[in-house]
């Protein structure tokens, strides 16, 4: 860890010519959350019916190893979930960054929301906990198992 004086002395005299905005870091972190949310949502959607599973899988056909059988196997519909997550992550990041690059937001207010959403997403992948909720929501749309 280089924290010797020669490396850090100039930090004392550091001054910003232009204001530093927190918008870009909020845009980056929010888009990452949306990408991860896409992973969770597409995972549950693909488990509802064969048709939805095939639809999600089709987005990942570009990925080497996305289809195939035999001992070597394939990535399967996981490739489609990753692709959709990447698309949502990238697209929302570009949009939010452009919109918020010169905006300042409270990171103190954003941090609990960010961490809470990550915990929610993590629990959303634990089947014994989330499956009854998914089936209830799916039932509202006529996809009850």
């Amino acid at each position, binding site marked *: *860890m*280089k*924290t010797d004086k020669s*490396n*850090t002395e*100039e*930090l*004392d005299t*550091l*001054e*910003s010519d232009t204001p*530093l905005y*927190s918008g*870009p*870091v909020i845009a*980056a*972190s929010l888009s*990452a959350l949306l*990408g*991860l949310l896409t*992973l*969770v949502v597409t*995972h549950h959607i693909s488990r509802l019916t064969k048709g939805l599973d095939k639809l999600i899988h089709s987005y990942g056909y570009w*990925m080497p*190893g996305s289809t*195939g*059988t*035999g*001992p*070597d*196997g*394939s*990535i*399967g519909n*996981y*490739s489609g979930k*990753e692709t959709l*997550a990447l698309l949502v*992550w990238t697209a929302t990041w570009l949009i939010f960054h452009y919109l918020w690059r010169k905006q300042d937001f409270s*990171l*103190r207010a*954003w*941090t609990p929301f960010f*961490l809470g959403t*990550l915990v929610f*997403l*993590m629990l959303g*992948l*634990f*089947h*014994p906990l989330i499956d009854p909720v998914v089936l209830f929501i799916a039932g509202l749309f006529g996809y009850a198992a």
Partner: protein
Amino acid sequence: MAHDAIDSHQLTKTLIRLQAGTALLLLLMISCLDLFFPTQYALKAAVHGISAISALVIGTYMTHRAYFLLRGAKINYQSLRNWALAATMLNLLGAISGNWIYMRYRGQDGPRDWILQNVPDFHNVLMEFKEFVSLFPFPLMVVVCFTLFYYKDQIHLRHDIKQFIAIIIMVSWFFLMLGFVSGLILAKLRFV
């Protein structure tokens, strides 16, 4: 009588590096020895294991750096940017190699078939959880990396941004550990 102490800054730096280096070396053996396992998927298993362990060790080292960010201490941002970039690339390699070994996991007579036949919950609950949670650290480290490169040394002027990325480094480490431990359990249960 003089009580000369070792320079505490230098001592901390040396011990952190020594701890990370020792952990990396010893833990790498877990996966390097995969290369000698009696399976035709030994290389895929070793590459995924080595990248996952390296990502975990560098992720752990990054948490040491995060404490300095949280405290608002003066640090070498150029060095931190390089480490963040390395951690991000290793997370990416872990995810890509994870896809590679996942193919065999799902393959005919692969670990999935065996687990579903014998202990289905390890696939239906643990693997279905692990395969997604293991992807969490990569976007999180991308956010850290982007922030450090975007704001450059001027980030020093915004303590709230430094605190935020320090927290993300910690969270990323948590997901790395979660993915690593669950992966290790599954590999112990049924190797490829």
